[in-house]
């Protein structure tokens, strides 16, 4: 059973299908691909990692490879609502409720957007960045005319660029951190188009009668404290929050997997070994639910989890050893650069927790 049909779940399903292991892939959306379906930017890196391709095209490629294998039952529009003590998963489908007891489960549930605390943060017009991407790139609906983007990570600057492509004005892109979080290739695109980027700057408050009409920002000092007198008022009808993601770990918790607090990777995470195995033997986790990174690492993790799950079922992938080593090397390479220092810190924190688990078991 694979829960979630985003990049991690799709890669896991393709790998399991290649190994000849029957699987059920469950996704709550109508279309497979998860967040890839709203990603219009080109990926970069090496050709093996879909460089030059846009997210929605990668999703379609993976889904058609999976369909070509013909071994996987795909349940879309379906939600896994619980994982019970006896190993049964409840699935709400358009045709009714199913109960399945998988021999192995790969949880590829992804992550949810974080909100930000400030007065009037619940006003309509204040949207998650993923929501804005869904509006503009999936449904062709504009969220408004003038946007303040909060967050200069990859999501913040990429969504800013996509809003500009759609003809929406981005008045500024701000971040409480003292440095831009995104890869420079993405940040440079919006800088070139004249979007001001303010670091050490956060939202003081939002205002408006019945919906968002203005956003007030202020600067932060070196200790992260707001500096009164530095306020700027923006007349905007949209504020877009791109302030990070929280891994969705509900099913892992219900299954009894041990979790640890790993802030570098988004919050509470199931403890995982090199094979993406949790502390519950037949449960594996991959993708943002295993630590918030990005789609390429999610796909590699999904394949890795599927290799391990198939081996555990006594039906290893014909190229298990070679594939596993290649995946581990690719993950190490992707996490090797200076931009991935935070990811490495999170991974090493998780390994320390993992070592603690072995010491105490």
């Amino acid at each position: 059973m694979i829960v979630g049909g985003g990049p991690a779940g799709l890669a896991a399903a393709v790998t399991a299908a290649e190994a000849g292991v029957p699987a059920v892939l469950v996704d709550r959306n109508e279309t497979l691909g998860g967040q890839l379906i709203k990603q219009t930017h080109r990926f970069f890196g090496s050709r093996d990692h879909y460089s030059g391709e846009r997210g929605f095209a990668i999703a379609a490629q993976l889904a058609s490879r999976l369909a070509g294998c013909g071994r996987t039952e795909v349940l879309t529009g379906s939600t896994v609502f619980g994982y019970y003590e006896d190993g049964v998963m409840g699935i709400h489908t358009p045709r009714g409720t199913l109960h399945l007891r998988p021999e192995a489960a790969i949880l590829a549930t992804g992550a949810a957007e974080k909100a930000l605390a400030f007065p009037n943060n619940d006003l309509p017009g204040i949207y998650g960045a993923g929501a804005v991407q869904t509006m503009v790139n999936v449904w062709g609906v504009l969220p408004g005319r003038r946007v303040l983007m909060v967050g200069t990570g990859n999501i913040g600057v990429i969504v800013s660029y996509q809003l500009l492509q759609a003809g929406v004005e981005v008045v500024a892109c701000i971040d409480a951190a003292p440095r831009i979080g995104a890869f420079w290739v993405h940040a440079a695109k919006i800088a070139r188009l004249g979007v001001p980027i303010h670091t050490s700057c956060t939202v003081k408050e939002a205002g408006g009668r019945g919906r968002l009409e203005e956003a007030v920002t202020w600067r932060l000092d070196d200790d992260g404290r707001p500096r009164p007198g530095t306020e700027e008022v923006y007349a905007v009808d949209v504020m877009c929050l791109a302030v990070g993601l929280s891994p969705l770990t509900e099913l892992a918790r219900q299954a009894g997997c041990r979790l640890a607090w790993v802030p570098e990777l988004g919050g509470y995470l199931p403890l995982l070994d090199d094979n993406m195995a949790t502390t519950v033997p037949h449960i594996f986790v991959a993708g943002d639910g295993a630590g918030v990174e990005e789609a390429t690492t999610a796909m590699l993790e999904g394949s890795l989890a599927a290799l391990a799950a198939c081996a555990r079922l006594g039906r290893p992938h014909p190229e298990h050893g070679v594939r596993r080593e290649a995946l581990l090397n690719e993950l190490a390479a992707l996490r090797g650069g200076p931009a991935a220092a935070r990811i490495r810190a999170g991974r090493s924190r998780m390994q320390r927790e993992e070592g603690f688990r072995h010491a105490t078991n």
Partner: protein
Amino acid sequence: MRLTQHPVLEFQHGPLVRFTLDGRVLEGYEGEPVAMALLANGVSVLRESPVLGRPRGVFCAQGHCASCLMTVDGRPNVRTCVEKLRAGMQVETQKRKGSLLARDSEKG
């Protein structure tokens, strides 16, 4: 507000259908989420919050956060960011927690 031209994307829509918001007739594309049809009509306030009655709209647009709950065809607490639009749908700005009683009394 709808996007008609985009440098990368082409949008495919179902047929244009009519539905109502609090009795007012609006148009949207069949099969798109109700909340998207409303946004395209310039409607961003979808309900009142349960306790303080504050205005609320979409937040996550993927069926996760429950900020977009509305009353649809008499059924309260429908996630309009994932509920597909159908011709003739009666959509209402949800007051507080919504009520099934209004629907029952209409039927009774």
